[in-house]
């Protein structure tokens, strides 16, 4: 017996009314940007939100179909599929699953550089006072292993950690042993200026599977200006170190990071070209952290966020041009933010998270055993601001660290979902909270968004990237996607080298 077919209107009549799911919105170059709770967005005609609010939208229109498919509205014609929306939201917050992944060990504060923007280093060659003791290292490893995370990254930092190479040699095998005993996968990165690196040290890193991350601020004139050391040869040392490290560790195991100082502004193309010349395939256009010595020395290093944003946009345009000519080069921050905007995944990047990555995603074990919520937190501590000291490895457990008063105070203001200025921001799904930044710059962890440099930077970066998405130039989009597709995000090695 043949079956019959039903006409569209009989089978699935248009609903008489609709209901709203949570969404946020803003204006965007003559259109409206509507973002749902899972970060999916629709660039809709002007007036769409008003029509939604007034129940005036035609439920038979293509626009209505777009809004329904993006889970911005629902109606009685079908299920709102809330479980599926929940799954998407959960995927976006995956990084808070499993506990702290990144553990930074400050093995020494000593450094032979005297960078203007450095917050912490000490000009001393004598051992002891500013080095991590073996007892402190043992306890830090124990605490690191108490993290529920199966994936653990141990970052060896300074100062200049290679000045305490024997401490590194003490920590690496013990951390590996502990990881094995606890069933964890351990990656180790050393953050070094590479000025004092030797083949012997590099061979040790190669044999132990330790990766290297270093600083490259741009061409010689800029790098040496930003990073003074005896002999004024930081650049030459860095380049030599990078090449040696590549030869021994393998090309892909050596990364470089730059810091933008006032002296860098106006030179973004030269900085990027330096990265291309050195055959790097990513560059991170990073503003200077407004902490410690960087605040003190604002005259020589600091600048307004507006100037950094011009620097960033000019740089991104230049990077896209380099890609169009056939050289693959990604900009790390763009990649991170676009991953948040364009993909169903979150990122592991600690500095742009809600809840804030501090403590939840990263812990810093200082040379003296103090435990901090982030690299920036311990820099504040070097300026005698102990607000974010969560405990000490010799006195505390993981539990007491996370339940310490500084931690709890910080966690209260760590979610953009509940912060004034963020809770209703259209870009919330792509942004993060940063109590440490706001404490450092505004004297208040909660922060005041209209005057926040953090807010200004991210609002403008996100808006700029949405403009590119809206332009939808096929070549540009292909380049941007080549940066983000198919890769599982790793946390970029942290700050100073």
């Amino acid at each position: 017996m043949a079956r019959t077919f039903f006409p569209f209107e009989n089978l699935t009549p248009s609903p008489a009314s609709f209901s709203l799911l949570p969404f946020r919105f803003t204006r965007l170059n003559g259109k409206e940007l509507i973002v749902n709770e899972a970060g999916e967005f629709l660039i809709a005609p002007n007036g769409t939100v008003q029509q939604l609010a007034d129940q005036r939208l035609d439920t038979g229109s293509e626009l209505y179909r777009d809004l329904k498919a993006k889970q911005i509205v629902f109606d009685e014609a079908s299920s709102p599929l809330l479980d599926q929306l929940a799954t998407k939201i959960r995927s976006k917050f995956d990084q808070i699953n499993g506990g702290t992944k990144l553990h930074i060990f400050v093995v020494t504060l000593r450094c032979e550089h005297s960078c203007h923007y450095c917050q912490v280093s000490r000009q001393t060659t004598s051992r002891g006072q500013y080095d991590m003791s073996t007892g402190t290292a043992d306890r830090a490893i124990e605490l690191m292993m108490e993290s529920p995370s199966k994936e653990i990254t141990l970052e060896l930092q300074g100062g200049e950690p290679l000045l305490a190479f024997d401490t590194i040699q003490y920590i690496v095998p013990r951390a590996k042993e502990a990881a094995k005993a606890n069933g964890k996968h351990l990656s180790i990165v050393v953050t070094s200026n590479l000025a004092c690196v030797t083949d012997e040290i590099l061979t040790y890193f190669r044999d132990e599977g330790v990766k290297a991350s270093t600083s490259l601020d741009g061409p010689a004139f800029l790098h040496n200006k930003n990073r003074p050391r005896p002999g004024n040869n930081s650049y030459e040392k860095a380049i030599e170190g990078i090449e040696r490290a590549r030869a021994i560790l393998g090309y892909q195991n050596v990364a470089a990071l730059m810091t933008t100082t006032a002296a860098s502004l106006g030179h973004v193309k030269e900085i990027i070209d330096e990265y291309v010349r050195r055959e790097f395939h990513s560059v991170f256009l990073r503003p200077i952290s407004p902490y410690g010595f960087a605040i003190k020395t604002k005259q020589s290093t600091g600048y307004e966020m507006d100037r950094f944003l011009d620097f960033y946009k000019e740089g991104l345009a230049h990077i896209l041009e380099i890609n169009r000519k056939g050289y693959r080069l990604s900009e790390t921050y763009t990649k991170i933010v676009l991953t948040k905007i364009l993909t169903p995944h979150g990122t592991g990047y600690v500095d742009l998270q809600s809840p804030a990555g501090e403590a939840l995603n990263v812990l810093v074990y200082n040379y003296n055993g103090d435990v901090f919520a982030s690299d920036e937190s311990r820099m504040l501590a070097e300026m005698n601001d102990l607000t974010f000291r969560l405990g000490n490895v010799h006195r505390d457990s993981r539990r007491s660290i996370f339940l310490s008063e500084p931690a709890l105070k910080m966690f209260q203001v760590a979610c953009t979902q509940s912060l004034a200025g963020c809770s209703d921001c259209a870009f919330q799904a792509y942004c993060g909270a940063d109590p440490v930044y706001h404490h450092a710059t505004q004297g208040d962890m909660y922060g005041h968004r209209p005057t926040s440099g953090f807010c200004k930077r991210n609002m403008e970066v996100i808006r700029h990237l949405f403009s590119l998405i809206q332009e939808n130039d096929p070549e540009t989009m292909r380049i941007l996607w080549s940066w983000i597709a198919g890769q599982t995000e790793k946390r970029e090695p942290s700050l100073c080298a």
Partner: protein
Amino acid sequence: MRLTTSGIARNFAGGIVGVVTKSDLLDHRREDRIRLLGPSTTVVGDSLIGYRCVLSEGKLDPAPTIPYIHRIRETDHLGDGDIVALEAKTGLVRSLYRPYERHHHLFATARCNSNCLMCSQPPKDHDDVVALTERNRELIRLINPHPNYLTITGGEPTLLGDNLFALMGQLRDEMAATEIHILTNGRTFAWPEYARRFAQVGHPNISLGVPLYSDFAASHDYVVQARGAFDQTVTGLHQAARNGIRVEIRVVLHKLTIPRLTKLAEYIYRNLTFAEHVALMGLEYIGYTPRNINELWIDPYDYQDQLEETVEYLAIRGMNVSIYNHQLCILRPKLWKYAKKSISDWKNLYFQECENCSAQESCGGFFQWATKKHSDHIHAL
């Protein structure tokens, strides 16, 4: 290639499944075999004892004492090793399995809870579950050598209920290395208990091929002619993923699915990111399609923009995407690498234009029924 033939059946009731042999075998090797006699063979006494059945084009006289079907219209398409199902009531000889083919199917049931406008195998409402399950269990037992791939199709295989789990269990035990693909509308998987039990069978090598026709619920429901189907399918896909069941999304391209195709790709990427493959498939002019052709037909030549945009959209996002049932002369060269030769051997043919085409080797060609309806832009390359 012919799939069925018929003759006059005697000496049995119900059905028989067995492996065709054209040459006479020793007694101890006859157990699973169906003896196909040549035109000039004469039957002597008890010489056929031990075979499951005897097939012959000519009239068998004297008649054998064992089951037989004689006066069969044609037997040229039957060869050694073919597995056939025989039906006593109708004298039907149906080829179930041919070892030399690339694509193998196991037909689970003709029943379906959807009624897609372009269904190539329109559902039937009679209960064939027990009979077909029995036939398929025997078929699985007889398949030799084990193929690399086997597709379980229908109708809607999940309507077999527990019988599907039994078949999967048998496949797990008897040919675990064969990759099993189940073509299902996915609706049944919306029940968490069902998805959980499916996964519990523990077949190491199984995936679902699930059609999704729109990102907008009502449009999908209309194409499959079942209200609420979109909600069930999407929920089912999520339940499958949650239980570690691998899934492929299949989209048939026609006038109702083309307009929102790129939006569907976006939906798949954001909501069904776990899909390990997206297949974009040309319309088959068979089954229900001719009845609904006015509502469905769009010349593939006319949707190349949407197809290219969709394929690019998925590919740059790292999703695995293929184009099925399209001829290379219709597709833009940049899409060729996504085109797969997907048509079953017995359904496959080429046109006269194709004789002079330099790309025929790598082209999937046509479904045999495409002779009646195909793109106006077929040409030799």
